[in-house]
Every structure is written in structure tokens, then in C-alpha cells.
């Protein structure tokens, strides 16, 4: 490892931690392959997004302070979810509009925080990955990654270098999948219709696998596809880019 290797703090995020450890390990591999020293600070929990989006700004601020402290030692912070990265980059500064000292601290954190693919492409200058992945894959970019991080097209540049991967495009990539955090359980019938539209769009593309950098969207899309009896499986983008397919994809139940 060269002496200039950046020390990266990996923010695994709640859903990857709880649901999909494999995506976390795939991300570690990708970062190490890109020349980073990866550390996973043990004090990390949640970025505070549920509080931010549900109006509990006080708790969101408390957690933001914890995130600032937890990731202070790292040159870069890499987040395994577009919406969590968006929370740190876009919304932490808003949360501390009246607190100049914290605003400086969260801005400093925001300036070195990246979503995984964004980091690999924009900071590490990655243009290709060495991985193989068979199958027809559609990519779903979360609304946060698209609109808060401006990531349109970035993931595709890497996906297209995975050998054996047949990438298909969606007709309506800019449409929300209907996850929206607690929105999907507070307004399930509206969310259902949005998710149905997304599943149909993905299904119409001919994809067998949908890859996304946001596990919330992915659980929503795959869960809806299962209910609709659409044979669609899901993987975190990190797994596909790392060619890491040790665990079965999301949506592959034991009876399959």
C-alpha cells in the first residue's frame, strides 16, 4: 500500500448493517482495491435521517454531532447509501443554521463525505472495475443520489466495465420508487402504486437483477416485485461492482 493511501472511514449505514453485510464487505474490497486504508469506526450508528424527515430535528442534530465526532479522524468518509450521504452533505448544514460552530464542523464533514460510487469515480478516479457478474442488470439510482448528490450516469460507467454484465436501461429512471423512508409505511397505498410503476419499468427493461446503491429503495422494489410475482432479484451496487455473489440476491427466498 503506498504511503499516500487515504484513510477512509466507512459509514456502513443502518440498512446495510442490518440487512446486507455482504454489501459492506464488497465496499471494503472496492475501496481497498482503489488504494484506500479502510476503517470501520465502531461508534457509528445512524446518520439521523429518520429524525430529519419526521420532524424530530433535535434528535437528528444529536446524531449529527455524534457522526461528526465519530468520523473526525478520517480523511474521507464513504457512505453506503445515497440518501445517508445526502443527509450529511445537504441537510446537516441546514440543521445547524443557527449554530456557527457546529455549522463549520458539519460543513467540514460534508466536504469530505461521499457515496461509495461517487468516491470511487470522482475522488479515486476509477474508470473500470475488475469483476465478473453474469446476467441482465438494471440500475436504479435513488432520488437522493440523483438530485442531492448529482450522481446521474456515474454508476453506469463502472457497471459497464463488469465482465459478463448485460446492462439494460430504464424508460423512466428519474421516477421515485415510492420508498421515501417512513413514507412507505405511513402512506402504503400511494407508495404501493409508485413501487408498482417502478417494478413494471424494471420488468419491461428485461432485467433479471436490479442493482442500487440504496438498500431502502432495493427492499421496496424487490418486496413489491415479490408481492406482484415478478421474478426480479436485487443486489447492492457494491456487490455487483466487486463481483461478490457469495450470498443469494435479495428476493431469492429459500423455497426458490
Amino acid at each position, binding site marked *: 500500500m503506498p504511503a499516500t493511501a487515504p484513510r477512509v472511514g466507512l459509514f456502513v449505514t443502518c440498512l446495510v448493517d*442490518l440487512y446486507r*453485510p455482504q454489501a*459492506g464487505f464488497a465496499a471494503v474490497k472496492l475501496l481497498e482495491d482503489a488504494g484506500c486504508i479502510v476503517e470501520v469506526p465502531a461508534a457509528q450508528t445512524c446518520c439521523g435521517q429518520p429524525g430529519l424527515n*419526521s420532524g424530530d430535528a433535535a434528535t437528528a442534530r444529536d446524531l449529527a454531532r455524534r457522526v461528526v465526532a465519530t468520523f473526525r479522524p478520517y480523511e474521507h468518509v464513504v457512505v453506503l447509501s445515497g440518501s445517508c450521504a445526502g443527509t450529511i452533505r445537504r441537510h446537516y448544514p441546514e440543521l445547524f443554521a443557527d449554530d456557527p460552530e457546529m455549522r463549520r464542523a458539519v460543513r467540514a464533514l460534508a466536504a469530505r463525505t461521499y457515496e461509495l460510487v461517487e468516491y470511487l469515480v470522482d475522488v479515486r478516479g476509477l474508470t473500470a472495475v475488475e469483476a465478473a457478474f453474469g446476467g441482465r442488470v438494471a440500475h436504479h439510482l435513488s*432520488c437522493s443520489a440523483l438530485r442531492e448528490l448529482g450522481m446521474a450516469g456515474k454508476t453506469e460507467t463502472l457497471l459497464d466495465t463488469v465482465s459478463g454484465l448485460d446492462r439494460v436501461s430504464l424508460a423512466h429512471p428519474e421516477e*421515485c420508487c415510492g420508498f421515501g423512508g417512513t*413514507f412507505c409505511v405511513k402512506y*402504503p397505498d400511494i407508495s404501493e402504486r409508485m413501487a408498482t410503476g417502478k417494478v413494471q419499468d424494471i420488468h419491461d427493461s428485461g432485467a433479471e437483477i436490479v442493482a442500487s446503491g440504496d438498500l431502502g429503495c432495493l427492499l421496496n422494489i424487490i418486496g413489491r416485485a415479490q408481492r406482484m410475482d415478478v421474478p426480479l432479484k436485487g443486489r447492492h451496487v457494491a456487490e455487483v461492482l466487486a463481483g461478490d455473489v457469495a450470498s443469494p440476491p435479495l428476493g431469492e427466498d429459500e423455497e426458490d
Partner: protein
Amino acid sequence: MAATSHLFKENARRAMLDERLQGALDKLKAGFRVKRREAMARLPEFDALRDAARDVKDHTLAHLDLYLEAFEAQVRAQGGHVHWCRDAAEARQAVLDICRRAGARTVTKGKSMVAEEVELNPFLERNGIEPVETDLGEYIIQLRREPPSHIIAPAIHLRKDDVAQAFRRSHEGLAEERSLEQPRELLDEARAVLRERFLAADVGITGANFLIAENGASVIVTNEGNGDLTQILPRVHVVLTGIEKVVPTMEDATTLLRVLARSATGQEFTSYVTFSAGPRRADDPDGPEEFHVVLLDNGRSALLGGPFRDALRCIRCAACLNHCPIYANVGGHAYGWVYSGPIGAVLTPAFVGLEEAVDLPNASSLCGRCEEVCPVRIPLPRMLREWRTLAFGRRITPARERWGLALWGWLAARPRAYRAASALAAWGLARLTRRKGALERLPFAKGWTAARDLPAPEGRTFMNEWRRGRRR
């Protein structure tokens, strides 16, 4: 209109089961969205124009008193009258007084969201004055006694046969054998009836897209020319509008007009853009004898200086409605008040109270598309979050949600407890998802399982695996 926003969930559910409405809403995507995108592609500097439009509005709102007084002085200098109204009741009364002084029996109306906001039509009717809407969409919903379901396309929830039915029910002397199947036939029928009404009206009431401080002009845009007939033919012209519509100069108005038409319908310019300033002068070929501007506050000035100030930049183009996945599924009526879609979800709690309308800012996935298309760059998602914060602070947020957040906040502040809880959850969910149907029995999971299965998790947490030394 009396708000039914507290019934949002119920209204939305009904709307989603309404096949006719759903068919009508499909038009949004193929129509407005595509046309806006094409219009943008034809104007490479569109984004710079949006910045300029935002800056015009920001500057005006920062000096709103100044520009309103300048506007008033110009209107008076030209022989017009300005009526300042604090609330809906004052605005209704001001219009009624003008109508009474003019001895009016019928008034024609151009499309005006502010007139809907103050419930002008039922008030005039109760006072013996017949209002006649002249915008085709507004006319149709007036016949059906419905509120508008969209800011620029008030009857977008209807289909041709709904319109034909409304005409057959209301138009006296409409022969039964007369075909009303083609749009053209509907248009001709409406035109024939409305022509008489235009000529009979004593007072014409329009809204305003902009008021211009430097010359006292009010500006309306229409694609039917109905606004012009409404304001030119009667003896009296009343402009009823909100105080936030003023802009400093003609130049500023044209900047906003350029983004308005493109954002709304995808046109480069609206078919009819009409400037009117004061009553008819001696050498004018036509125009009204009296010119009144009724300026409505109704809570707008209270938004200045607060977190919702930027919502006053809104120029009512409806791009946020047209691109909103929530609006596209539930339509405008579900929102339960005059303004719908993302801008309605921001304005309605301000106008009718957060307790009444708390569902509106919550019923959003915060996808951000509204802000992305807004011609004056209103940060709509930030404002939806702001309402949620106010609701949480005022304990309007349901107790169950507040408890859930408290538990999550407690755990997230204690990494060891959090680790243990997530490990337990990962294990439990893995077991539950293995047995089909087990999850449905958990009470908190209902919102998820109503529409979705829950894919199986791996069963262990990343953090624990990492701590144990697993690296792949």
C-alpha cells in the same frame, strides 16, 4: 372553500380507486412533462433564466411594501382604485361592494386561484349576483360545482363525456340529438353559451399573474382569450390577486413570463398575454370605465421573514404538480383545499392550519423532483420537512410515531445497545421472513406488508461480523 385536508388519506384512497380519474391523470406524463422538457431543450439558457426569475422574486419580496405602494400610486394616478384586504372576508366584501355600486347582476370571471381561495362564487351567488366562469376548464367545474383539481388545468380530472354530461344538464335548449363527442363540438357549445354571457356581464373579474410597480399594470396570461373578453367588455374590471404578485418592472415581468409558459405548458409564450393599466382613457378604442385592484394578504405577509418565505416566489405554473408522483396518483382534490401538489402541501398548512393539513407535508417521499423543475427554485422538500418539524414540536405528529422516534433516538445514541438491537432484529427478521405470512401478524409491519413482501436479510449484522474479523 372549507378544507377537507384532514381527510387526505381517505380522499387519496378513493382517488386511487377511481378509474376515470386515473385515466385522466395519465395525461400529465405524456402531456405537460414532455412539453416542458422539449421547451427546455429549445432554450439552453433556461437554467440561467430560472436564476434570474428567482432573483426578481427574492428582491421584490425583500422590499414588498415599497413595490406594493409604488404599484398603488401608479394605479391611482391612472384613475384606478386599489383595495387592501387582510383576509378572505374583506376581499369578498370589496368585490361585492364594487359589484353593488355598479348595479351588477352578472359578472364574468377569468380563471383566478385567489377567487377560489376566498370562495368568491358562492358568496356572490348568496348576494344575488351570478358569476360566470369564462375559462373553459373553470366553466366546466363551475357547472359541476367542484373546486379546481389543478392550478392551470382545473378540470384535468374530467373526461370528454363528463363535460358533455355537464353541458347537457346545464345548458337550456341544448338539443338531445346534437353531438358532443368531439372536443371541437364541446368547445363550440361552450363558446356559444359563453358569448352571450360575455356581452351581458356588468363586471369582469380576473386574477393577475403579475402586477407591475413601475406602471401600475396587471398582467394575465390565457390560452383562450377569455381573460381579454372578461376585462374589456364589461363596464367595470376588477383584478383580484395576492400581494406577492407584484414585480418592479416590465422587464422583470417578461423574465418571469418566459419561465412561466415553458414551465407550465411548454409553450415559449402563452397565447394571450394581456397588460391592463387603469380604466379606458379618452383615446382608447375600448376598455372598462372603472378599474379596481383587490389586493389580498390572507396570511401571505405572515410568511415573510419565516421558513416559508420562498413559497411566495411561486408563479403558479404547476410544474411541481405535473412532476409530483404523489399528485400523479391522487390528483388535486385529495389535497382538500385550493392549492394541490407540492406547492399546495406547503401553502395549505399555512392557510388552513397545520392540524387540519398535517397529512399534506407528510405524504411525500421527498424525491425532490418538484424543486428540480420549479422555475423560481422554491426549496419545496425543505419546506415539507419544516412543516414536519413544526408538527413534531407541536405534538401533532401521531403518538406512535413520536414513540418510535424516541426509541430509535435513544438506541442510536448508544452504539452498544444499538448493535445489540440490530443484531436481534437481523436474527428475528431472518426467521420471520423464512416463514411466509409470519410478518403480517406483527402490528408495526402492516404498512410494509400491505403492499410488499419483506425480502430475507442475511441474518447477521455487518458491524458484528466485522468485529469478529470477517473481511469478505
